[in-house]
């Protein structure tokens, strides 16, 4: 009974806190995967806003972070599906969000232009020393999700492709499908040209499932798809080797505003990172993309299974 009263009180306080920061929320933004949106319970510290990028894996990770922190009694808001790295890093720095799931190698390449090594620890250390003063990363997980260049089985057999380098010889016949930002990034057309002398005949700027469809339907011959994407095994796509380590090592890591870090949050997120490995991550993405489950429901399920929420 006492618990009940506490909970009601907590909800009321949370509602007030949310109403207070209402100006900061975009009322037209979709709720977190249709339900888990603006929930929270008051307790320790100030309110925390967890953001995520515009693909399902990031959204599940964001919901997991939010759930784990909420379980520690901190008031949490989630802002899923913000956009590409360029957009959410800005949001992080201007305080619109406080935490976002990130990838060590991609973030390092984004900040510095190159990622020095494939060794996960070396990348992680380099990332820590490269981050702007107002941002910080907590423990990395062993879960890896790299950018990768993927082709269909037919294309692979037709040109006997093994690595990305083999694409260069057939570049006049190859159209690449990737997100629009791929065009101007080092981990994108820029790096493909400088590292592999590969400049595709055509570039299709698409998003999410449209990239997979373009590759499957033959509008594109190669595509930039995440290594944990369930569409790779589902369609028998082949991931090309990356001998020059353009897409390096990419471990999942929470990126935070330094002024929001405290022991409660650190403990909650490090406990999450300890529980996520590549197989778990692949399964989480599959539940959202293939089984069409709600990202917040998948996150809740993961948290309760691992005793984190």
């Amino acid at each position: 009974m006492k618990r009940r009263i506490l909970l009601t009180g907590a909800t009321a306080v949370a509602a007030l806190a949310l109403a207070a920061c209402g100006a900061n929320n975009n009322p037209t933004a979709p709720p977190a995967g249709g339900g888990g949106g603006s929930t929270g319970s008051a307790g320790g510290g100030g309110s925390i806003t967890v953001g995520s990028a515009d693909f399902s894996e990031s959204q599940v990770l964001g919901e997991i972070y939010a759930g784990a922190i909420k379980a520690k009694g901190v008031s949490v808001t989630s802002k899923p599906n913000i956009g590409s790295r360029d957009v959410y890093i800005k949001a992080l720095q201007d305080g619109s969000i406080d935490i976002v799931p990130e990838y060590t190698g991609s973030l390092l390449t984004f900040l510095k232009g190159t990622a020095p090594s494939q060794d996960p620890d070396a990348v992680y250390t380099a990332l820590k020393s490269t981050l702007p003063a107002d941002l910080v990363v907590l423990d990395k997980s062993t879960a890896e999700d790299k950018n990768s260049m993927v082709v269909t089985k037919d294309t692979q057999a037709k040109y006997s492709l093994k690595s990305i380098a083999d694409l260069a010889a057939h570049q006049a016949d190859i159209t690449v499908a990737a997100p629009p930002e791929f065009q101007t990034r080092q981990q994108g057309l820029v790096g493909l040209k400088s590292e592999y002398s590969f400049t595709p005949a055509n570039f299709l700027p698409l998003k999410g499932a449209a990239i997979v469809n373009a590759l499957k339907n033959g509008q594109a011959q190669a595509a930039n798809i995440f290594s944990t994407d369930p569409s790779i095994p589902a369609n028998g796509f082949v991931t090309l080797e990356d001998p020059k380590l353009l897409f390096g090592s990419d471990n999942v890591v929470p990126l935070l505003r330094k002024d929001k870090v405290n022991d409660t949050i650190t403990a909650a997120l490090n406990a999450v990172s300890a529980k996520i490995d590549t197989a778990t991550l692949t399964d989480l993405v599959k539940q959202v993309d293939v089984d069409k489950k709600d990202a917040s429901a998948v996150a809740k399920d993961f948290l309760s299974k691992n005793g984190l929420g």
Partner: protein
Amino acid sequence: MLNQIGTWLTDPTHWTGPNGIPQRILEHLIYSGISLLISALIAIPLGIMVGHSGRAKWTVSLANSLRAVPSLGLLFAVALWLGPKIASSLAYVIPSVIVLILLAVPPILSGTYAGIQGVDPAARDAAKGMGMRGGEVLRKVEIPCALPLMLSGFRSATLQVIATATIAASISLGGLGRYLIDGLSVSDYAEMASGAILVALLALLLDGLIALVQRFAVSPGLSGKFRNTPGNRPVVSTTARGDAATETASPTDRADEQREALV
């Protein structure tokens, strides 16, 4: 911000190559031009037929009701359906053109229909009295009399198509929409704003061009520029002119909404 837009627009590297402004404007005009041409080929004969015979008026209502279809949703739906059938970038071009045709047909059709229907029966009778046959009446009297409304329908269709052709960029095609989508993905607001400004300028420029055509193509007897006989009254009735005014207002509003939805 204004400074950044100025810098972006005047940067010489943005004016050359496959990503350059001239190339993007050309692509934009090609998508819009093809869509408008096909729309005109559908809507003008149909409008003439309905206006002339007074039958099958439901086609006009049907076309108008199609204005309610959300363009972006339809674009994705058609692209998703056509994707597995065509293994080339036509799988993106065709959906875009279909969506634009659906936007352009209603104003052209309504304009043509209202124009032909609004022709003063006295003028028709006079033409017949002079010994003109059906085809001649249509060519020499009805169409010239309907021309102001037909052109104003075409003008509002053009405005809307130019503004909406930006959505082609969301399914990988070129055109000025590229600057909106690519700018958003790397949060380059100067690029996005410049893209939006270019779309607006292009729309205004074409609108002005058609206005000029309207001025020169419309018979002086209709435009009121040429009134040496005092008893000469315009053959297009005032109600038809009223229709034209309402026709032009609503599509522009919708184009605005779509631009907002995209940004």
